[in-house]
């Protein structure tokens, strides 16, 4: 691990002021950052410990939804009554990720910023990674790419975003609140993470002097009918090969009034399946409709040597997730 100067921020304004120091990083739960520092992938010169900031509250904002502080731990969020009752898809997604120990440490803000588990990114012994070393090439495109992206990738990077929590938040139209040296701003969830394009090293639209302070969830009455389906190599404690967050509102004749679908394990960012959603609205909720929606969403998918299976897997996962939600009372 490279040497760094450690400091502890006592309020968000101080944290933001310190963030302009050379190669500064905020330290939250540390579950990803400290691991990456051990690997030599992250080499911050200044580490600003934000764990003492007063950002660990979950606030019921009534008609405006729920505000989740950036330092709320994954386990606390998953177990919170407001989340379990109003946004069960988020609770399910959180509990499907990592282990109880890691969920006790990992923060909401850190989860938003967690980095890909692409092997070529995570191990500096691999010379090629445009994310870690811009311009060096991508080791995965011609290499072993079983876990990699099938949607929205570029010829520079085919890494995926590894989060479960973020897939549910994408489906829930969450809003990320940040504080910077120029004040506060809100970033809609869809605009927070970026596709790789020619700059896969820039993963989010967060600026260096900005601190995530909270994530807002809007009121979505029908979000109680939701499901997070995670498909992975083993039944527990593994990253998703493909995951689906599905929220479905049906009328009395079983026609789709409203629907939200987001996919994990398929792209560089949480993938909101808007093509699938468009094709579903107004149709009868049955397997045929769901399959057509899945086909529409994956029409643009592109597989590589080892991950082409994900295209059909994603389609079937969408159908399974929607079928599960449609069967809910």
């Amino acid at each position, binding site marked *: 691990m490279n*040497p760094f100067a450690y400091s502890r921020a006592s309020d968000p304004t101080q944290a933001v002021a310190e963030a302009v120091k050379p190669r500064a990083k905020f330290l939250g739960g540390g579950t990803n950052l400290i691991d990456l520092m051990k690997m030599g992938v992250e080499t911050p010169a200044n580490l600003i410990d934000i764990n003492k900031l007063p950002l660990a509250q979950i606030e019921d904002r009534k008609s405006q939804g729920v505000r989740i502080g950036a330092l709320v731990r994954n386990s606390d969020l998953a177990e919170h009554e407001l989340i379990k009752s109003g946004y069960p898809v988020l609770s399910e997604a959180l509990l499907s990720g990592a*282990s109880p120990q890691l969920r006790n440490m990992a923060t909401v803000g850190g989860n938003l910023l967690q980095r890909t588990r692409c092997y070529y990114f995570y191990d500096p012994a691999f010379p090629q990674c445009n994310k870690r070393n811009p311009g060096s090439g991508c080791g995965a495109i011609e290499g072993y790419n079983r876990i990699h992206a099938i949607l929205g990738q570029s010829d520079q990077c085919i890494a995926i975003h590894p989060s479960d929590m973020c897939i549910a938040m994408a489906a829930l139209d969450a809003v990320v609140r940040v504080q910077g040296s120029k004040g506060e701003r809100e970033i809609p969830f869809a605009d927070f993470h970026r596709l790789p394009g020619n700059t896969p090293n820039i993963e989010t639209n967060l600026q260096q002097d900005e601190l995530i302070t909270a994530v807002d969830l809007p009121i979505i009455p029908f979000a109680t009918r939701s499901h997070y389906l995670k498909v992975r190599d083993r039944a527990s404690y593994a990253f998703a090969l493909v995951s689906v967050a599905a929220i479905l509102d049906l009328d009395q004749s079983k026609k789709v009034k409203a629907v939200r679908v987001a996919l994990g394990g398929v792209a560089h960012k949480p993938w909101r399946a808007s093509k699938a959603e468009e094709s579903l609205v107004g149709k009868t909720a049955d397997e045929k409709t769901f399959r057509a929606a899945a086909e529409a969403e994956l029409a643009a998918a592109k597989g590589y040597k080892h991950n082409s299976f994900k295209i059909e897997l994603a389609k079937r996962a969408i159908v399974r997730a929607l079928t599960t939600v449609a069967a809910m009372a």
Partner: protein
Amino acid sequence: MNESDAPVDSGLEEFDELLILSNLETRRKFIKQVAGTSAAITIGPALLSAADATATSQIASPSKSNSDSISMTLKINGKDYTVDLDPRTTLLDALRERLHLTGSKKGCDHGQCGACTVLVNGRRINSCLTLAVMHEGDEITTIEGIANGDELHPMQTAFIEHDGFQCGYCTPGQICSAVALLKENHANSDDEIREFMSGNLCRCGAYPNILAAIKDAKTKST
């Protein structure tokens, strides 16, 4: 057992010693004894150099670095320890290498195996993925602090009664994790226990007995 295994009879005893003592001299003797084929002789030196490198890295003091060390007080098992630590020192390394509380184990050092599990303010965490300096003012409980003096914690007793281990390396993490699990109220079925113990790996495969121990401890605590 096939013919080529025959000379290993004596070697197996040495292998036990190797695991238990981690003695370099024994490793050399062991490798010489089992290196009966030319292929094994080729592998021998590579094994030795890897063993030597591991030993060296364990001896290296975390305080010898370019970072300025920080004086901090850590409250562990109810006792205050004031230490100067390089800020890079993980909580696990502080416990094991500086405070000589070696009950918490280093398995993967990447938060994947759970051998390093400790309780911080009553919650289980991976001590390998957190810096010691982040835990000033926290109540840290390690396996050394789980028992009540000479009286074992019910979870420890249950692990012994149900033979919840073979080599024992993962056991301190398993027990700390299981103690927290009962507090979390996630031990209500076999499947739930399995899911909520998934952060603790056991390479000996003692899982059925670990499950039995946790169920027993839960029954006795309610």
